């Protein structure tokens, strides 16, 4: 199934959760940021980990939450 952005409903071409996460990060406007906080995450801290540590930890964490959000 193709994943929808839980905030604006955008569907990435690949439909993958990870690309949806990238979309949410990249857009990064107030509503999208708010969603991170609503999930008990911190947008800044996720950015930090993405910016400082190799690997994709932040995107993956968010992708999992998005999948979860899409399920329910």
């Amino acid at each position, binding site marked *: 199934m193709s994943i929808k952005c839980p905030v604006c409903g955008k569907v*990435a*071409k*690949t439909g993958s959760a990870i*690309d949806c996460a*990238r*979309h949410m990060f*990249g857009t*990064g406007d107030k509503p999208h940021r708010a969603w991170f906080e609503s999930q008990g995450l*911190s947008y*800044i*801290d996720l*950015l*930090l980990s*993405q*910016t*400082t*540590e*190799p690997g*994709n930890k932040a995107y993956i964490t968010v992708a999992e939450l998005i999948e979860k959000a899409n399920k329910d």
Partner: protein
Amino acid sequence: MKYNVINTHVHNIDGIEKVTGRATYTFDVKIPGMLYGKILRSPHPHARIVNIDSSKAIELMGVKAVVTGKDTLGVKQGIWRRYSELCDEQILPLEKVRYIGEPVAAVAAVTEEIAEQALDLIEVDYEVLPAVYEPMEAIKKGAPEVHEGVERNINVTRHIEWGDVEEAFENSDYIREDWFKCSGQAHMCMETRCAVASYTPDGKLTVWTSTQSPYYIQGLLSGVLGLRESDIRVIAHYVGGGFGGKFELDAAQFCSSVLSMKLSKPVKIVFSREEDFIATKRRTPMFYYVRTGVKKDGTFMARETRVFTDGGAYTGMGATALYLTGFFHSFPYKWAGYRYDGFRVYTNTLPSTSMRGFGAPQGMFCSETQIDLIARDLGIDRVEIRRKNAHTPNYEVPGQATIASCGLTECLDKIEEWIKSRGKLPPNRGIGISSYGFMSGGIFNWFDSPYSFSSAVVTINYDGKVDLHVGCQEIGQGSNTTMAIICAEELGVRIEDIRVHSGDTAECPPDLGAWGSRQTLMAGNATKMAAADAKRQLLEFATAKIKPNIVYDLDIKDRWVHLVARPERGLDYFEVVKDALRGKGGQRIVGRGFYTPHRKGMISPAYSYGVQALEIEVDPETGKIKLVNCVTAHDCGQPINPLGLHGQLEGAISMAAGYGFLEDMPMEDGKIMNPNLVDYKIIRATEMPETEVFEIDTYEPEGPFGAKEAGEGLTNPTAAALGNALFDALGISVKQLPITPEKVLNALREKKLEDNK
């Protein structure tokens, strides 16, 4: 186009003074009754000032005054007069200190020695506060607050985006992520920050100082001292270097002024070299995350970049550096989708700010290093991949910039030729390349100046000598000479006919000053316009005298006023001047010119381009790098002063190569560990590589005679070229500046481990 003065061999017009020791810098200024000031600085990175007791100091024989924040208006100042929240620095803070070396008090005494002794007698009662030194720490929840109420210590954020970035990534065949760390760098002007302030009972203040922008200093002093702007005269006839570190208000200027106003006596403050290292500002350290998507054939599709910069204790010009690093990180290539998010974070360290390149060297180091890695991953030639994506004339960077002239492709061709000409290199040699580009002056007006960005006044005297008054600032880059050349060319006289007046707000029109490579284009346009205005007036009289068929045009070349169509028919320039003066009732001929950019995008009216190749030799046993050759193909539009241009190029290489492998400002608990010229390494004559430059001539419609930026952008490529040369020589890529021998060695060890896998 054949010119008489432009692009000819011209001596700097201030050369004689400089090679005979006659040039008088602020450092040399001595006036009757002058006192000497010294500044007491905080030993703590973060502390509340509870009390300052200067009673003992004031009793010391020879001490005339001690001032603290309480003796000032307590204005939080900055160049950001349009954005008051970014004006966050009290030069003598009232509440607390935020970095080691921040001023807390200043003393004036009859000698420097007594002033220094007095500092030891001032008792400051500090309440030491928890401090934070790394942006990645400062931004975490619960980190100490550098400025009260600034959440997560985030000072400014900048976002740049165009195209559909997600889609561009989806359409990419290959995506690469890299992490980089760029260090700070000291401007290290040979003349340290210094000022002589003289306040007189008539309420007027004169300040001799070492600055890149007398007009900014005049305006800023007016704000912090509560004086009328025009009652402040700022004089900077000779300036011992600037490099982006001398257009903000500094403690030498502020404290000497406050002391002088208190005493109505001249006060001189000269920073020691150590003060200049620990208590001015520095190039902005940056953490870069870069994710880039490309097609199999090397076409750049998408780039997403996140940057955290170490802002230090105050904003300085760091907010602009944060924006420009993000923009020039995309430069000089075309991207279907580009997204940049930058965060500037306060820490309890020396504030960071603009420095030659204004954020671009960091952005380009990360970009150009990754491009070489991508080229290797895809098996594409490194010149080819750059050529494929290069900016071209009349390209528009969506929503950001409109490019007119652009010689990047020609530059790449030239450099490719040169690399081929080197043939097969001996072992442990490598050549690295980096493209670059830069702005020709920022369109930004954070200062909210009501004046034109640049102005010029040309006055022709009875004897034909021309007085050119400009507000643009000579700091060694040769702007006085450039303006003299432009004026002489436009007016049709010789360089020796021009006398340039600059560096004095009482004599010269306002001008934003020497930063962002703006003067050749902006002050150059103003000067050209003023000269044209004066020439028009001369030609009116000449026309009346020659009485040509009115379809004929007149012009002046090399002091000969003539018909363009029949050059032999004309008059001597000096005769025409004499007649014109009489015709004007004895008034000297005065021409006015001014320039302010309009409808030129977000950044600059024009962009320079180039490609640099750096050949190095590495000792694989020690990791030591030796610079061998540095060749640059350079599109700066129409060169105005070739001698000055070459000097700018070589100077930029020495400074930028230093950034690449030598210069760093390591800290422990907020304390800079190398605040002296023994431990802070600067390239000396023996470390400088041979240099060669190919001028790629283009014509920039927005620039005077087609000229554009020529000195600052050259700081952008060298660190990247150095890293890429190491990659070429040994196949290792060091992503942390500076690239020290130890880092090279560690990278070699890691490579061995991987190769053995």
